[in-house]
């Protein structure tokens, strides 16, 4: 998240928006964005519906057996087609913005 924030200008230069999605409520995400200084949209999917549709549900992965998202990154083009996907098998290891930017430049 932090590395996407640091590269936000490079995404915006390419006219690509970065959007974060989790089951967190808007209020929780607002706290996060304020404390970490994130300026791209954080969207709330409390029932994990969108998360389920993208196939990145981590059933009962949260506190008290709550359904949450597994970490994943998708690049979607203007026609609404997925053009690049990153699915980690380790919650510590996330996509590096550089590789997403490279995928955008290949579009």
């Amino acid at each position, binding site marked *: 998240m932090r590395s996407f924030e640091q590269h936000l200008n490079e995404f915006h230069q390419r006219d690509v928006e970065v959007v974060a999605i989790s089951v967190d409520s808007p209020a929780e995400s607002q706290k996060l964005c304020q404390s970490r200084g994130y300026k791209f*949209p*954080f969207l*709330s999917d409390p029932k994990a519906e969108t998360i389920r549709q993208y196939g990145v549900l981590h059933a009962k992965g949260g506190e008290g057996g709550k359904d949450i998202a597994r970490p994943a990154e998708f690049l979607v083009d*203007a026609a609404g087609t997925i053009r690049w996907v990153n699915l980690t098998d380790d919650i*510590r290891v996330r996509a590096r913005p550089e590789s*997403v930017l490279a995928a955008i430049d290949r579009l």
Partner: protein
Amino acid sequence: MKRRRNILIWAGFAVVLIALVSYIPVFALFPATRDVPWATYLLFLIGSALIAAGVRRAFRDPERNRGKISGSILAALSALLIALFVASVTYYSKQIPSAEAALGVSQKAPPFVLADIAGNEISSSDLLRNHRGLVLVFYRGYW
């Protein structure tokens, strides 16, 4: 002869502790030290070497060096902490379901309408109308 305090043991234990607690606030911030935590492992190695040297001199020359008991306890504690860290990065952080169900390249991205931090409904179709593309970053959340 007064036995001297075995500083190596305590310094080594301090290095191990620093290695452990610095991972999340420092090294995990940078992909280069996060994905493979080599900096943390290096600190563990330095700390362990200091403790080992301290324990060695405590047992070899106990007339002059203290630390036979404290050194053994701190060595065992360090080994435990290091094992805990290794287990966390090699096992616990990989306990996520497989991504078999995930959508793949060239599939349609399901449209969505979700609330942003101000409670405004944001739709993917609006976002795509105004931009050349979208990067969707799904994350576990902080609940």
